[in-house]
């Protein structure tokens, strides 16, 4: 075997005491596509950043075939500059020069247009601001920018998360062409079908290190390796939904970028919402929580119409939202575990606006125990806890509000397997107690195993409802991806 184009050997990395990688190794040959698979938080993104030279490893080394190897990275978080044009973004750092060595701004759109056309992209206007194009288009531009720099090693971290089938096919065409030209490609994805269709080699990650590299491997075996246990044991045992009363109904509720939506959520059931990122799930969940509220339509709480125009309306109506991005939307990282737990229930814990600290202390201690939050004390800044424990604090906050309707928006993202398991058990337990749970996840497997039924969203509308007996990850993905020859973007004017 020839020397690899790029290899990581025994790489470790910690962030603020939390180990992201422990002794991970991979080797990628020229002209091959290497997929990294593993749970969220298994260390794939960290390894990609280390391979790309964005961050330095604490231990171990990265070896490359040459000192001046060109490495291009498509990051999971988009890096397009919003108030610069597509052309300015594409050509950043290699702008065409005109007279006096100055950048020829007038030539940039034409140059960008030509380069995009060379990659088969003709539908994105290089004169538009990056902020004005759709999420999928931004991801495509992000990929195009990296490819245009002619990398010898191409690192793609979740580069397909916002793309539909046709766009994924375009990307894979590009990847195959680059591979045939001798580029070494590293690739992460959550979609198993994509991985098997493009990868020459698959390395499986668990808890920050590689646990095996394969040329072919079945999905079940891969999942067992990724999680350290068989799929069945991660998820709680299935149980029938108690056919309780309908706690929450939507009738023709329309948020920005969605169609009018109808929905009934019963006590004791976990209703899953599936579909690809950027297809209106967020607008649905945040609309129910009044942030911002729906533009039209009705929300009924146990048959009675309620007005929800702000989060406090939702909280008063007994609705809780656990958002996906706990760092920016959920938690107050520098503030204590205590402060994070009790913010929405301070009214109950105070008299004339003054906090009853004893009662608060007891409440927080009880929550820490109930959710098994691993923290040295209630005074600890919540940012010092691990991702899983942070998520428990956030969930615990909303359980304290005694809301009976829980909107859980991708709550297991970036959480380790053990904690995931605990969160699943918790959710199932809550449903058995009679909570009504609306559950969105970007992980179809999770939806299929945890929910009693799943509604699939595409372009802002419900396009399918899968009952318990028809539930599978494949069925959810198939419903989400089914093309219908309509327009590309849900909110094109």
């Amino acid at each position: 075997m020839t020397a690899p184009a790029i290899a990581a050997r025994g790489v470790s990395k910690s962030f603020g005491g939390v180990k992201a990688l422990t002794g991970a190794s991979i080797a990628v040959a020229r002209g091959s596509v290497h997929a990294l698979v593993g749970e969220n938080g298994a260390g794939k993104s960290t390894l990609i950043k280390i391979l790309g030279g964005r961050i330095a490893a604490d231990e171990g080394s990265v070896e490359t075939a040459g000192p001046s190897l060109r490495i291009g990275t498509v990051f999971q978080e988009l890096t397009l500059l919003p108030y610069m044009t597509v052309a300015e973004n594409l050509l950043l750092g290699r702008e065409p020069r005109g007279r006096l060595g100055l950048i020829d701004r007038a030539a940039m759109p034409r140059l960008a247009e030509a380069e995009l056309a060379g990659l088969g992209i003709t539908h994105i206007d290089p004169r538009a601001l990056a902020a004005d194009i759709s999420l999928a288009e931004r991801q495509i531009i992000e990929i195009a920018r990296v490819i245009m720099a002619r990398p010898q090693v191409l690192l793609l971290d979740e580069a397909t998360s916002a793309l539909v089938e046709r766009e994924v096919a375009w990307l894979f065409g590009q990847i195959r062409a680059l591979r045939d030209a001798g580029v070494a490609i590293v690739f992460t994805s959550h979609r198993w079908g994509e991985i098997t269709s493009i990868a020459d080699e698959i390395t499986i990650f668990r808890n920050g290190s590689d646990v095996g590299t394969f040329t072919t491997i079945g999905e079940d075996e891969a999942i067992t390796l990724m999680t350290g246990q068989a799929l069945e044991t991660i998820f709680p045992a299935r149980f029938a939904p108690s056919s309780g009363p309908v706690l929450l109904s939507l009738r023709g509720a329309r948020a920005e970028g969605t169609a009018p939506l109808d929905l009934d959520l019963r006590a004791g059931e976990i209703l899953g919402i599936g579909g690809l990122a950027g297809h209106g799930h967020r607008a649905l969940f945040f609309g129910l929580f009044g942030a911002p509220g729906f533009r039209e339509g009705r929300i009924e709480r146990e048959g009675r119409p309620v007005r929800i125009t702000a989060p406090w309306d939702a909280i008063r109506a007994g609705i809780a939202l656990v958002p996906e991005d706990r760092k920016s939307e959920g938690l107050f990282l520098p503030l204590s575990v205590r402060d994070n737990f009790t913010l929405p229930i301070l009214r109950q814990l105070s008299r004339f606006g003054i906090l009853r600290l004893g009662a608060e202390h007891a409440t927080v201690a009880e929550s820490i125990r109930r959710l098994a939050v691993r923290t040295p004390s209630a005074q600890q800044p919540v940012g010092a806890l691990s991702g899983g424990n942070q998520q428990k604090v956030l969930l615990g906050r909303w359980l304290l509000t005694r809301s009976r309707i829980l909107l859980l928006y991708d709550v297991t993202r970036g959480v380790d397997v053990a904690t995931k398991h605990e969160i699943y058990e918790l959710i199932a337990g809550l449903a058995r107690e009679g909570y009504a749970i609306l559950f969105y996840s970007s992980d179809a497997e999770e939806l299929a195993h945890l929910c009693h039924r799943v509604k699939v969203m595409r372009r802002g509308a419900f396009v399918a409802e899968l009952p318990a007996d028809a539930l599978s990850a494949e069925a959810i993905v198939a419903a989400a991806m089914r093309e219908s020859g309509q327009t590309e973007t849900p909110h094109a004017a």
Partner: protein
Amino acid sequence: MRTLTVDTRRILYAIAAAIGLFVVGEMAHPGFLSGPSVASILVIASFVGLVAAGQCFVILIGGIDLSVPWVMNAAAILLTTTSLGKNTGAPEAIAAALGMGVAVGVANGIGIALFGIPAVVMTLAANGIVEGLTLGLSGGFTCSSCSSYAPPLIQTLAHGSLLGIPDALWLWAFVTALVSGALAVTRFGRATYALGTNPLAATLAGIDARRMTILLYALCGGFAALGGIMLVGFGGQASLGLGDPYLFTSIAAVVIGGVNILGGRGNYLGVAAGAVSLTVLVSVLLALSMPDYVRSIAYGVVILALLLAYGRENER
């Protein structure tokens, strides 16, 4: 040993700086640390401290209030012209001055929270508006009632003492207890820190960010007016530009008191210590008969030195 939090250590730094400066003053000018000398320095510091209390509230949510100088000035002239130097009109005059400050603060808060105007722009414009109105209505402080004195009641509050401690310090101690307590153990305090740490998450946790923002700017306006009232009580008459030095000093006191200019972190005890530090610094330089420009430079250097020290803390 229990490790101290970063916030606690910053407060200790600010207090240590104040004490250190007192000691330097005593060495440079024996008698600096005598009771009357310390008391008079603290009284001056209390004016800064009152204004900085308001500034602290808005900086805790990542805002800033540049309208402080003319709110103080307007409060001062409003107090003297409505009371005409008589105790009988004092309550109404105080209410009018404080009400004016709160009203300007509410307007600031509305502009920032409801119309999305950047705090720097809104409060800068408000300062101009209050300045123009104050100057215009008072004919540039030339009106017949403009030369009135502050009511004796207020003058006593600024100059008198109770149990050997100046009244102004009793007031400041009361305000310190109130503000620190409000920030530490009330719903209002928790909401303030939450909003300053992460406005989106605070909104999603049910906090009415707009109402809180308006409330905090209203408090800031009220405290600036209170500062103006005390200052005119201390000086006797309202003078043009009386509030000008307090814009810079109030922000500086808040910042060296360990409050993060981006919001979310800090405590009024540190701010009070910051107000004392800045005032002692000026007094020391005066005692050393340093010219004005040295004071100005020393101010800047001390602020930068403390900020760089705090910055190191963050890198841990």
